[in-house]
């Protein structure tokens, strides 16, 4: 007769099945090195794809700067071109840094929340960079030009909508909404930091 086994959590924890597939999991350093190389290659491909798409978009805006006949439209397109170049330069220019994960648990979690809050605020602040392009497009009658280019009939309601300021009001309204959403997400991350700090102090 087998002796009754302890059912205390500590014993139960250590007694977990030891002969299942996961427990037999082993990796050799060479396999791990190959995995790292494979991931680096994948990252390079993704970065190149993003860079190519962004460069093509930027070229499209550059073409508009050259082909548009209204100065405000030219300014608007030039602004977007500059903005894309800036974003690509700052966001994709450097190699991604590997984050240290060897710090203690509390510091690691705090850093994760801090980075999340910083990223949301950075995105939120960058939203305002689109305002000059939107304002210039408004002054140059950008939406009306776009409607005409799409063959919208001049007597249609949509044409009248495009001729007025409403497309820009809607765009600005959406920008403000997204600004608030990013702000709320950053505030949530800051609350998580505070909660973590309170928990650490307990």
């Amino acid at each position: 007769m087998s002796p009754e086994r302890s059912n205390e959590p500590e014993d139960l924890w250590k007694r977990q099945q030891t002969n299942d597939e996961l427990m037999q999991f082993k990796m050799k350093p060479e396999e791990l090195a190959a995995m790292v190389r494979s991931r680096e290659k994948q990252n390079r491909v993704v970065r190149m794809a993003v860079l190519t798409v962004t460069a093509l978009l930027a070229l499209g805006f550059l073409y508009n700067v050259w082909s548009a006949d209204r100065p405000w439209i030219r300014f608007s397109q030039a602004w977007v071109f500059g903005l894309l170049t800036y974003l690509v330069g700052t966001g994709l220019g450097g190699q991604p840094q590997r984050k240290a994960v060897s710090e203690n648990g509390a510091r690691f979690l705090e850093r994760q929340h801090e980075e999340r809050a910083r990223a949301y605020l950075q995105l939120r602040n960058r939203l305002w960079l689109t305002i000059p392009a939107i304002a210039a497009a408004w002054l140059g009658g950008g939406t009306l030009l776009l409607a005409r280019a799409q063959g919208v009939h001049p007597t249609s309601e949509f044409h009248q909508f495009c001729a007025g300021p409403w497309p820009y009001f809607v765009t600005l309204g959406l920008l403000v909404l997204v600004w608030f959403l990013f702000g709320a997400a950053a505030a949530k991350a800051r609350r998580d930091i505070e909660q973590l700090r309170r928990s650490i102090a307990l």
Partner: protein
Amino acid sequence: MDRSRQDALYCEASESFGAALVRLVRAYEADPDKQRDLLQEVHLELWLSLAGFEGRCSLRTWVYRIAHNTGASHVLRCRRASALVDLEAIDTGRLMDDWRNEADRRLTIGALFDLIHRLQPLERQVILLYLEGENAATIGEATGLSATAVATRVHRIKTLFKRQHAERNVNVSGTIE
């Protein structure tokens, strides 16, 4: 650090803490299909990190830090952190119900995992290290919590387990039912 030293340290860590890493991964990911991926990620992070290991802490503490941080990242990425609770706020009533419903009224590993999966990452680290049999100093070094904070949490864990134990005994003797 040269590559051969990094590889040797990884082999040593994998050999000594392999089983603990599997238990830890199960505590951070409930889905058996995803556990293997997370375990692979933990091993990868461990191997990469060992290139920067300078012996300022023990290999044991280093391994726990890497594994728990990788697990915490996984939790924060996959699950809304707001759905997780502190040890203090754990719904012991529900936990007791889970344990009571077991046919033989014995604590099962499933019920224990259910408790752990509901905890915030930092609380989870403490309970896992406690269950692994680590002392307060190692738990403090791995989590960054003060000795007092670790002691408080360990006390809460023990109280929780004691309540479970008392409840089980009451149910088995039938004095309440």
